């Protein structure tokens, strides 16, 4: 865009021009001149943001794509290896395990997160007393640093000395090994994700519920619709835009789980992980094994997965999301 660069060249002059002069000038200037001045200011004000965006997003994205076709390992200069990294994904069982872990974590996490947060929001949307108190209680885990959350829960889950297994034992139930067994680690991580995330979604659901006009319910009551009918025919459909938004965010969030897994499921004093997720695997490959090229390839798989799932959800939304 030659026009843009010409205008940008004038930006520095504009920035230092005394304000009073400029105002006087604009008083005389025609609409064309005014439009140009405004455009210059526009570029000036978005300038810092767009510069950062160009360097840390666009440029980084291009470099990242390039790296994914190399064998760069920090020490030696990168060699072009074509699609080798992508081919390697097909035979890399550790990657496949991380992918599987992420998938089996995402499904229960998204479903339960939506269900629980909606249930809490509906309970708190009634005229119940101590609403603010309950809301705060459910929200506080959202504020807690995931590293701290992971540290606490790791201790809660301790197979021999933790309170969870102690309670299970008192009730005569089996005492699972939780985090030290890859099978139970999944459930353990999902529980912590729910504990720390449900409060956030609850707040957004509450806002969605408050946006539903009261008269809809009044009209339904006049028609003799019971509580359940009102919930099914008014609340749920009118809440679908909110639900849609939260599902999209929850899926993206699930695919990117890292902190908790890093803290909770790494075996003490080693770098073995009982429940590696994709992002954990990227971190491990890049910054512990220094296979930067390959780690970037895995990151691109993550990017493509996120794009695919988001696109798919936007396609499917026509089937179930009601916009009024």
């Amino acid at each position, binding site marked *: *865009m030659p026009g*843009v660069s010409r205008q940008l060249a004038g930006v520095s002059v504009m920035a230092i021009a005394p*304000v009073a002069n400029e*105002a006087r000038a604009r*008083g005389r200037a025609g609409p064309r001149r005014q439009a140009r001045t*405004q*455009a210059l*200011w*526009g570029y000036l*004000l*978005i300038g810092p*943001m*767009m510069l950062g*965006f160009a360097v840390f*997003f666009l440029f*980084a*994205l291009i*470099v*990242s794509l390039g790296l994914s076709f190399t064998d760069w390992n920090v020490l030696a200069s990168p060699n072009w290896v074509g699609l080798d990294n992508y081919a390697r994904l097909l035979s890399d069982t550790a990657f496949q395990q991380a992918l599987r872990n992420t998938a089996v974590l995402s499904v229960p996490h998204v479903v339960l997160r939506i269900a629980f947060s909606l249930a*809490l929001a509906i309970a708190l949307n*009634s005229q*119940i*007393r*101590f609403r603010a108190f309950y809301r*705060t*209680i*459910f929200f*506080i*885990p959202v*504020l*807690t*640093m*995931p*590293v*701290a959350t992971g*540290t606490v829960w790791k201790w*809660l889950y301790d197979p021999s*000395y933790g*309170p969870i297994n102690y309670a299970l034992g008192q009730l005569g139930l089996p005492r699972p090994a939780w985090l030290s067994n890859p099978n139970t680690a999944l459930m353990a991580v999902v529980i912590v994700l729910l*504990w720390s995330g449900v*409060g956030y979604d609850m*707040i*957004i659901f*509450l806002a969605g519920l408050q*946006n539903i006009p009261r008269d809809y319910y009044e009209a339904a009551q006049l028609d003799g619709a019971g509580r359940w009918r009102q919930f099914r025919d008014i609340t749920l459909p009118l809440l679908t835009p*909110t639900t849609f*938004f*939260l599902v999209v965010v929850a899926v993206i969030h699930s695919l*990117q789980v*890292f902190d908790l897994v890093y*803290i909770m499921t790494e075996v003490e004093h080693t770098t073995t992980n009982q429940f590696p997720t994709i*992002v954990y695997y990227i*971190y491990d490959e*890049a*910054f512990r094994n220094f296979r930067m090229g390959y780690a970037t390839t895995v*990151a691109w798989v*993550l*990017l493509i997965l*996120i794009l695919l799932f*988001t696109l798919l959800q936007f396609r499917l939304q026509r089937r179930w999301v009601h916009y009024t």
Partner: protein
Amino acid sequence: MSKQTPAHLLSRIALHAVLLTVGAIFVLPFAWSIGTSLKPLRDLFVLQPRLIPSEPRWENYADVLNAVPFIQFYLNTILVTAARVIGQVFLASMAAFAFARLRFPGRDLLFFLLLSALMIPEQVLIIPRYILMRELGWLDTYQGLVVPLLFSAFGTFLLRQFFLTIPNDFQEAATLEGANPFQIYWQIYLPLARPALTAFGFLVLLWSWNELLWALIVTNRTEMQVLSVGIALFQGEQFTNTAVLLAAANMATIPILIVFLFFQRQLIEGISLSGLK
């Protein structure tokens, strides 16, 4: 409305019972964390764990400060978070104002380009950013921790939506008075957008205070580490004593809870705002 029927009363009691039970589950990890952080060693590895320590050992908190430069972690976290909050709010609001209220060629195209950043997971960008930091000599520096994370497409989007709800008349009147767009942004739009700015600022603060991945990658020297990294790395190294480790975790969480108590209303409103497009 039939308010005081026995059935109604019963359902209310049942609802409170459910909410209190769920609430107890939500609070228990905090209670356990506080209880355990005050336990002497002999209380830790027992087969019948108790919530309340047999005798509170406050020295566990002092032990954190002796084991690692925890004060330095605090200072680093505060500094980095303050810089990220101020930087993100300033840059995003300025761009948001221009995108919402100024006309210039390519505006919508640039805006949509910026929005595409929302779709890109940070993990794809982290290795090139790391290389960039290395080339600039910014590893183990504050600017390395801060600068790459100053540009929020989300914030620009959120604040642009908010600016669009402010009537245009203010801008027109101020333009006639001879104010330039930056003055209009700074003196009119920023003050009017205070609720949205506070909410967005708190979201940045929360994210920044808790952030782990980038800080883990970009810092190596102990003096440069933030709280999240400090706790993560020293878990199992310096802090072999779980009580001391949990004391550290509690100390990392408390400042956020205090800020939340002050900004609770704004934050809740802000989150509600972010969910409604």
